[in-house]
């Protein structure tokens, strides 16, 4: 794009390949290879096995995957609901309140995830609200981190929709409640689906805050991968990563298909 001469374009593609292959593709390829490697002493693995993948789909590891999924769904659903509500509410608010609320909703993007984790840990480690050692601290951390993204996705879509649609609905006899549920929210569905996908993907890969707050009974897969790597079990960690990636991709594709079907 934007470069029209043939040579220029060829050069651009080469530069792109030189950046893309080692930075994005190579690590992924190595990961997949490591997941099925028996032993690895040369440039390529010297033997192949499905053992690691088998281990990654058994016992403790599956429980960890399930924890990741549950966390992602709980945090994602929460973030989408609050994000949609926030976007609608902010839009209706008077201009001054609107700017403040909009900035507040975007705040978690600016705060490092470790800080979010630490903050939650110190805030909820003692009564009156002691959540230390429960799954809820993990879910809340993820919720806080993905909310800003869900909000800004929906809010951007809302900015693009003509408020006159609500007036049309009202002129046809729809009460404000009906307008909300029959017109405004349905018209936001593509954005809601995008926000859900984004929330799920972010949550599935979250480590920074999770590692600060997770209890032994609620260890998401991302943290498991981190600790496995830390202990030198690189092949198993790679296999876990492949499982995590595959699961996330399947869910995102599923969500995408469902949305497209609903819109047709």
């Amino acid at each position: 794009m934007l470069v029209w001469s043939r040579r220029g374009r060829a050069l651009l593609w080469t530069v792109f390949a030189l950046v893309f292959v080692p930075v994005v593709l190579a690590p992924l390829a190595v990961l997949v290879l490591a997941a099925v490697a028996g032993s690895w002493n040369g440039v390529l693995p010297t033997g192949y096995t499905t053992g690691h993948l088998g281990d990654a789909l058994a016992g403790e590891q599956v429980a960890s995957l399930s924890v990741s999924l549950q966390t992602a769904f709980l945090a994602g659903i929460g973030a989408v609901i609050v994000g949609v509500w926030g976007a609608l509410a902010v839009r209706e608010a008077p201009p001054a309140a609107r700017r403040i609320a909009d900035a507040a909703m975007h705040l978690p993007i600016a705060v490092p995830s470790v800080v979010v984790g630490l903050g939650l840990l110190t805030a909820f480690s003692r009564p009156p609200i002691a959540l230390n050692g429960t799954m809820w601290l993990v879910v809340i951390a993820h919720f806080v981190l993905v909310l800003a993204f869900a909000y800004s996705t929906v809010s951007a879509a809302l900015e693009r929709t003509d408020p006159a649609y609500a007036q049309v609905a009202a002129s046809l006899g729809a009460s404000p409640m009906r307008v909300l549920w029959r017109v405004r929210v349905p018209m936001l569905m593509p954005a809601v689906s995008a926000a859900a996908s984004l929330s799920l993907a972010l949550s599935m890969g979250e480590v920074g805050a999770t590692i600060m707050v997770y209890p032994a009974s609620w260890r998401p897969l991302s943290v498991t991968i981190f600790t496995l790597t830390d202990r030198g079990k690189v092949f198993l960690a790679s296999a876990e990563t492949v499982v995590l990636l595959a699961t996330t991709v399947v869910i995102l594709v599923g969500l995408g298909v469902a949305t497209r079907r609903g819109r047709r």
Partner: protein
Amino acid sequence: MTVLDAHLVVERETFRLDVPLRIAAGEVVALLGPNGAGKTTALRALAGLRPLTAGHVTLDGLDLDRPGSRLWTPVERRRVGVVFQDYLLFPHLSALDNVAFGPRRRGLAKRDARAKAADWLKRMDLTDYAARKPRHLSGGQAQRVALARALAVEPTLLLLDEPLAALDARTRLDTRTELHTHLGEHAGATLLVTHDPLDALILADRLVIIEDGRVVQEGDAAAVTARPRTDYVARLVGLNLFRGHGDGHDVRVGADFPLAVADRVSGEVFAAFPPSAVALHPERPEGSARNTWPATVASVQHNGDNLRVRLDGPIPVAADVTPAAVAQLRLVPGREVWAAVKATQVRAYPV
């Protein structure tokens, strides 16, 4: 029987709309005016999308809006149907569900609402498109769905905001004809907001012309086109219009220019003649025309098969001439010519 009786007063910082409006059952009234005249403000006030500052909206004998006695009916409780300029069909609903939306909200069961919607689509010749989403409809089809959606709630007052403006020229022609038929069948009152004189002349029984928030002229098409009362209306209907002081067979217009007219007149009058009545000559003509004056060509533009020449001079006029005449007289901006208009072609009427 008067269905709508309204006096719309809406005040903004620099603008004031003050328009009395009455529409009878089955009558189609066009609200015509230049951009910024307050047409859309008037429509939104009637729909309940903009509160009045003063005045009232009374529909079927029932006050909907009367700021004087703090009375206000929200848009969803008015028996008013609106066709918006860009149609604004709900993109997530099929054509059928778009039309069924209104009946459903007004208390019909889902099945009955959809049956009613199907009936309306059939009337609009759109049965085959019932299941389509709006983005798979053409402009003309979308316009008809929007009309069906507004009519399906059986509104006492139907409001149309520039209903044909979003269509291309060819579609507009067909759709205008269909719209005429459907508006003819509508039992309630209809208000059509437009800046296109052709829409107004074809679709409306009566024209209300507003400029700068006020009514400047009102009447049926024949009356308005025959006797325009402002420059805007004159330009709309394609007439040269002057206001002046009449005495006998002369009307003194502009900087004391005497315009001879056929009628006998006195006092403040309008004098109007069509551009086709203006003849152009290279020299001072010696024919029978009573009005002749030297003029300078200001511009030459296409106007249908002819060319429209704008002339500066003692009175600024537009003249329609054939391309042949343009070539023969070498009509280019700056060229000096003589203009002539027969007295019998000039219509004069009291202000």
